[in-house]
């Protein structure tokens, strides 16, 4: 079995609303899965559940043989899941470079005692990380923005940056919440090309997206969900032609 992520029978209620209703799915290694569905279907809730920002009422989530059910967000990130947010979160008052540096894992300088000791080691690793970060920026073709505030980037560049932050954290699974919504076509191309590259680096992706063309372009598999339930699963073609999906959209 080559499951990276396995979600089993997850339930989540919000004041009577079922945000997740007995939801199960599996994500394989090196796979890009599209998660689609109408607004309020529970897609972002699913992301929040996987990354530990929302606790589930029942069910089980396994990641890479670890049980990550209802673990804290920072812990889950350490297991190797990284995410972006629908409302695009970044540390806007810090530079682009700092945002990426923040995302690296296992930084000795982040331990309090190392603020005063092991100066050299901290400096070396900080230097290494900086190099890696600049490489990543180069890869994304925005290295000239490295020392600007994240806030001063264009919307598309910010979305790009949030994906670069995920890359910096060296995650095996990336959860991308509408990474190309509302940005210009050129930027969409760039982001999609980065996403398609990911399986080659040994990473998997779950992608929430409304743009069906993009989804069919990059995703190996598509999951359609509505009202917290998984309605349909398969290639984008299959899902698109599934009568239950059509029905859900008509509602």
């Amino acid at each position, binding site marked *: 079995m080559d499951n990276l992520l396995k979600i089993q029978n997850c339930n989540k209620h*919000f*004041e009577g609303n079922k945000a997740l209703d007995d939801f199960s799915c599996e994500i394989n290694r090196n796979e890009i899965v599209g998660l689609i569905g109408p607004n309020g279907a529970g897609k*972002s809730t699913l992301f*929040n559940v996987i990354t530990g*920002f*929302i606790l589930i009422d029942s069910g089980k989530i396994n990641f890479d043989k670890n049980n990550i059910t209802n673990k804290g967000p920072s812990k889950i990130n350490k297991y190797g899941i990284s995410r972006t*947010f629908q409302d695009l979160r970044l540390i806007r008052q810090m530079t682009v470079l700092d945002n990426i540096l923040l995302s690296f894992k296992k930084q000795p300088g982040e331990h309090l005692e190392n603020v005063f000791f092991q100066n050299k080691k901290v400096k070396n690793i900080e230097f290494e990380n900086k190099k890696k970060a600049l490489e990543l920026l180069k890869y994304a073709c925005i290295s000239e923005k490295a020392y600007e505030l994240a806030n001063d980037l264009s919307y598309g560049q910010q979305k790009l940056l949030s994906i670069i932050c995920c890359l910096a954290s060296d995650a095996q699974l990336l959860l991308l919440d509408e990474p190309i919504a509302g940005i210009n076509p050129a930027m969409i191309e760039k982001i999609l090309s980065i996403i398609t590259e990911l399986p080659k680096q040994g990473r998997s992706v779950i992608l929430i997206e409304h743009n069906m063309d993009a989804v069919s372009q990059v995703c190996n598999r598509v999951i359609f969900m509505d009202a917290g339930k998984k309605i349909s699963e398969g290639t984008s073609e299959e899902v698109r032609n599934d009568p239950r999906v059509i029905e859900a959209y008509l509602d």
Partner: protein
Amino acid sequence: MPLIQIFLNVLIHSSNYVLIGISIALLYQTTRFLNFSIAAIYTSGSYFVFLFLRIFNFSLFLSIIFSIFFCVLIGFLIELFLFKKIRKKKSSYLISVLTSFGVYIILQNLISLIFGDSTKSIRSGAIKEGINIFGARITPVQIIIIITSIIITIFLLLFLKKTKIGKAMKAVANDAELANISGISSDKVISISFAIGSGLAGLAGILVALDVDMTPTMGMNALMMGVVAMIIGGVNSILGIVCGALLLSLAQNLGVWYFSSQWQDAIAFVVLLIFLIFRPQGFFGKKFGKANI
């Protein structure tokens, strides 16, 4: 243990905590920050009465009416010249909190500059023994305080439930932007809640001063008790605040009874901390729904 007396004490104290608590909660709901300037308006209420009553020789009733009017005016002006502008800049709650604290310092010192620091009284008539109820004592003024608080609370409850403005306030409290979109002017609603909150705070100050006189620094303590009542009860529920006020004054009373009177303040704030940590939504507050992500 004099149960009846303790019961009466709790009633008197909590009727005051309720008024100031609701006043703070109204403002908190619509503006989303803790407004310290309410403490100064609370104090101003009683000092305005003193001004009209003792210096202009108005009747007590007329003084109170005028005084509440002026409290409303002050609240309205503060909102207009400070907090509205801060909101326009989309500044965070901290800026508003600190501004309101500055306003409190200014107003409180203004009052002590004008009236001096010693106790001032607005009672009328001689100091009499309270009415004896099975050995417990309560004065007519205290009865009036309790009744007024109950009436005002019920009135507010109905006002928020039934009237258009009340409903608009609820809408703004839930989501100011959404309310704006659906045609409710959040600025207007906030102004109204400032007016009502200030009036309430002024009235609370007057009622206390009728019972136990006044000093320029009395507002801060009252504000904190109101905040404690509000948090224990839950910001969104008037009934919750009533319960919070009752619980707070009961805890203080029993604290004096079982421990010692010097721990009164500490007890109130320990109760507050317990609630903040274990039940931050208060008695009747709904548990936070969706995590704010």
